[in-house]
C-alpha cells in the first residue's frame, strides 16, 4: 500500500493554535490511503480507507474559517462547514457530527459520493489561493471521517421525536430523498410509512452505486436508525400497482411524498441493442450490486462473464459500470465517450480511480451499431471518431463525427450508460399529478408541492437524474412543507 506523507504530526499542530493563514496554506492536502489498483480490482471492498485521526486534524487545520464561507454557499444543504471543521480540529467529533446532521442526515454517504469539486470545494478559498479545487480543504473527506467515527462509536442516539400528532405520511421510494423526508417528518411526531418497490431500501444507493464506492452496510445502518425512530419500512410495494396514491389517502394517510427516482434506462436506439450481452447500466449494476451477481454461483443471479466490455457514457454511472466490469473479471474495459475528458460529468475521483484501475478511455468516439454473431451475441461494436465543434445549448462544444473514421471494436459485452429518465409509474396511475415533457413531476420549488393536494415530490423524479445531495436538499424542503401542511391544514 502506498504511504502518504502525513504532514506535520498532529501533536505539533496542536501546539500551533494560532497559525497564520499563510502557514495554513503551507500544510499539504491530506490524501486518503487506498487499496492498490491491482489488488482492489479483485475485490469489491471500498477503495479508500478514510482519514486517520491525525490526518483529519491536519486537514481540518488547513481551513481558514472564512467569515463569508463560499463553501457553505456551494453546499446544496448549506452545512455549516467551517464550524464542523473547527470541531474536528479540536478533536470534538461529536459536535462535528451534530453540526453536519443539523442539515444533512446522511453524512457518511454524502462524504463519499457528493461531487465536491462542483459543490462545497469549488469555491473554497484555500483551493482558490493554491490554484486548484484539488487543493481545496477536503470537506467531503472530513465529513466522511466524522460520520465514520460516529458509526464506530456504536449505536447513534435517535433524535428526539415530538409527541404523536395522529397524522400519517406515506413516502413512496426509499432513495436519499425519501429517507430524508422520513426522518424530518417523523421528528415532528407524525407516523411515517416508506413504501419501496424493491426488496431492499436505499434506491440508487443500494442498487446502483457499487459496494467499492459506498459500502451497503452504511446505507443499511441509516435505515436502521430510521426504524429506531419509529419509521415503518414496507418493501416489495410498487405504488401505482398495489395501491394508487389515491388509495393511500383513502387508507388514512394525510400526505404523500413521491420520491420514485429516475429509474428508466435510456437506450441509444442503434442497431443491435437487443443482442445478448447488451445491458443497460441499471441492469448491469442491479445484477452486480443488489443481487450480488459478483458472487455467482454462491448467489443465484447470473451476469455475463465478459472478456471485452464497452461502456457507453461518461458520467458516474458509466464509471461505476466500467469499474464493476473489471471486478467481474473482464480483461479489457473500454469507456466510449463522445466528448473529451474535461466534459465528462463524472466525479473527478471516479475518473481518476477508473484510469488507475485500467479502464481504457476511448474519448471523442461514438458507437454507431452493435454487431452480433450468428447466435445473437455481441461480437463487435462499430465506433466513429468525433471532434469538438461549436458550443451547443449546454455550453459544451458539440461533438461532430469525423467522416470515414469508423472502425470495429471487438467486444462481447456492451453497457449503455447514457442516462436515465423518470419512472412513469406514479404519474401514469395518478393523472392529476402534473408532469413536464420529460415526465418529471412539476413542483412548486419553495414547497415541493405537486398539482395534487396533499402530494409532494422531490429528488430525481423532479430533477431528472441528478445527485444524492440535491435529492436530499429537495427532501428537506418538502419535509418542512409537509410538516407545515399537516399543522395548518392549508394547501
Amino acid at each position, binding site marked *: 500500500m502506498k504511504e502518504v506523507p502525513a504532514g506535520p504530526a498532529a501533536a505539533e499542530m496542536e501546539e500551533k493554535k494560532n497559525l497564520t493563514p499563510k502557514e495554513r496554506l503551507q500544510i499539504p492536502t491530506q490524501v486518503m490511503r487506498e487499496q492498490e489498483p491491482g489488488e482492489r480490482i479483485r475485490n469489491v471492498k471500498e477503495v479508500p480507507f478514510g482519514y486517520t485521526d491525525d490526518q483529519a486534524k491536519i486537514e481540518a487545520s488547513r481551513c481558514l474559517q472564512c467569515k463569508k464561507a463560499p463553501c457553505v454557499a456551494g453546499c446544496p444543504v448549506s452545512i455549516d462547514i467551517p464550524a464542523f471543521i473547527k470541531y474536528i480540529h479540536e478533536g470534538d467529533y461529536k459536535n462535528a457530527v451534530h453540526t453536519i446532521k443539523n442539515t444533512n442526515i446522511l453524512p457518511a454517504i454524502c462524504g463519499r459520493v457528493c461531487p465536491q469539486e462542483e459543490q462545497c470545494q469549488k469555491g473554497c478559498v484555500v483551493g482558490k489561493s493554491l490554484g486548484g479545487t484539488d487543493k481545496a480543504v477536503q470537506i467531503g473527506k472530513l465529513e466522511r471521517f466524522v460520520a465514520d467515527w460516529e458509526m464506530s462509536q456504536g449505536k447513534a442516539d435517535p433524535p428526539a421525536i415530538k409527541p404523536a400528532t395522529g397524522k400519517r405520511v406515506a413516502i413512496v421510494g426509499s432513495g436519499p430523498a425519501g429517507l430524508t423526508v422520513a426522518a424530518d417528518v417523523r421528528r415532528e411526531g407524525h407516523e411515517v410509512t416508506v413504501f419501496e418497490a424493491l426488496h431492499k431500501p436505499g434506491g440508487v444507493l443500494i442498487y446502483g452505486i457499487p459496494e467499492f464506492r459506498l459500502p451497503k452496510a452504511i446505507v443499511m445502518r441509516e435505515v436502521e436508525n430510521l426504524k429506531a425512530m419509529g419509521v415503518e419500512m414496507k*418493501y416489495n410495494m410498487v405504488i401505482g400497482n398495489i395501491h394508487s396514491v389515491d388509495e393511500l389517502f383513502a387508507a388514512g394517510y394525510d400526505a404523500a411524498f413521491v420520491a420514485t427516482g429516475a429509474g428508466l434506462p435510456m437506450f441509444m436506439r442503434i442497431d443491435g441493442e437487443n443482442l445478448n450481452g447488451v445491458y443497460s447500466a441499471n441492469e448491469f449494476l442491479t445484477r452486480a450490486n443488489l*443481487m450480488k451477481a459478483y458472487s455467482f454461483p*454462491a448467489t443465484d443471479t447470473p451476469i455475463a462473464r465478459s472478456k471485452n466490455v464497452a461502456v457507453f457514457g461518461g458520467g458516474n454511472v458509466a464509471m461505476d459500470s466500467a469499474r464493476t466490469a473489471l471486478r467481474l473479471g473482464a480483461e479489457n474495459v473500454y469507456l466510449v465517450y463522445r466528448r473529451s475528458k474535461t466534459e465528462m460529468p463524472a466525479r473527478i475521483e471516479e475518473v481518476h480511480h477508473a484510469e488507475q484501475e485500467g479502464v481504457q478511455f476511448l474519448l471523442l468516439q461514438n458507437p454507431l451499431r452493435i454487431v452480433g454473431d450468428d447466435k445473437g451475441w455481441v461480437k463487435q461494436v462499430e465506433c466513429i471518431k468525433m471532434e469538438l465543434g461549436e458550443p451547443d445549448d449546454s455550453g459544451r462544444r458539440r461533438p461532430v463525427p469525423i467522416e470515414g473514421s469508423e472502425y470495429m471494436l471487438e467486444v462481447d459485452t456492451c453497457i449503455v450508460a447514457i442516462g436515465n429518465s423518470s419512472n412513469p409509474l406514479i404519474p401514469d396511475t395518478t393523472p392529476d399529478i402534473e408532469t413536464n415533457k420529460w415526465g418529471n413531476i412539476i413542483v412548486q420549488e419553495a414547497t415541493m408541492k405537486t398539482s395534487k393536494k396533499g402530494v409532494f415530490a422531490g429528488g430525481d423524479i423532479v430533477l431528472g437524474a441528478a445527485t444524492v445531495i440535491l435529492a436530499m436538499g429537495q427532501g428537506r424542503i418538502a419535509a418542512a412543507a409537509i410538516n407545515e401542511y399537516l399543522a395548518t391544514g392549508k394547501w
Partner: protein
Amino acid sequence: MNRIIEKEFITPEVFRMRIEAPEIAAKRKAGQFIILRVAEEGERIPLTIADGSAGEGWIELVVQIVGKTTKLLSMLEAGGSILDLVGPLGKPTHIENVGTVVVVGGGVGIAPAHPIAQAMKKAGNRVISILGGRNRDLVIMEKQMKAASDRVMITTDDGSYGMKGLVTDAIQKLIDEGLKINLVVAVGPPIMMKFVSLLTKKYEIPTLVSLNTIMVDGTGMCGACRVSVGSKTKFVCVDGPEFDAHQVDFDGMMQRQKMYQVQEKEAMENLKK
C-alpha cells in the same frame, strides 16, 4: 414474508402453490404477475398469478421446475413462507366482450391462461380453450379450464391424450369449421406463441400473447425484459406482459431468453450436488 397455504404437485415437474397475500389478492387482475425470491441470496423470478381469492386473501401460482429457483420453490411446503413477494405487476389483460375468444394455453402456460379465460367468459364472450402439452401428463388444469370455457380442446404432441398435434392444428380446425374467431389469446412457450401468431396473421385474427422474458426488478428500471414490438423497444414488465402477437419479434425474444443458459445450467448442477 408470505405464508404458503398449500402446495401440490400436478405433474412431476409442475406444482401449484397457494400463498397468503391479501393485498395482492385484492388488487390482481387477469394477466398480471408477481416476482418472488425464496432465499436471501436468491434470484427474483416472475410468475403469473394463476388464481386468487380477494375474500380469502390468497393467490395461486402454477410453476414448472426449469432451474434452480423454481426447484428451490418446489421444495417449500405448506406452512413455510416466501421471503419476498411483490405484485401485482404488469398491465392486466384488456377484457371486453368481443364475441368469440379462443384462449390457447401451452404446457404450464395453461395456468396463466386460466384467469384470462375466466375473465373473458365473465365479460360475456364465448370462450373456446385449447390446451396443449407434449404428452398427457403435461396437460394441466383441465377441470378448471372446462369450468371457465364453453368448449375445451386438447392437443398432445404424441397423441397420448386429446387430438394428436399442436395447438395450431386445433386453431386451424376451428377455422376450417367455419367459426368466426374475434380474438385469440395465447400463453405458452415462445415457439408456440410464434406459430400461433403466424397462423392467425394469415387469417387476420387479432391475437394477444403473454411474453415471458427474463426479468430482474419488474418495475421498468433495468430493461432486461425488453423486446422489440412493431420495431419499437418495449419493456415486458411494465408495457406488457401482453402484446399484439403480430407485432412481436419472437426470434429476438427467444434469443434473449438464452442469455444465461450456461450459468443457469451450472446453478442447477451445483444444486443437485
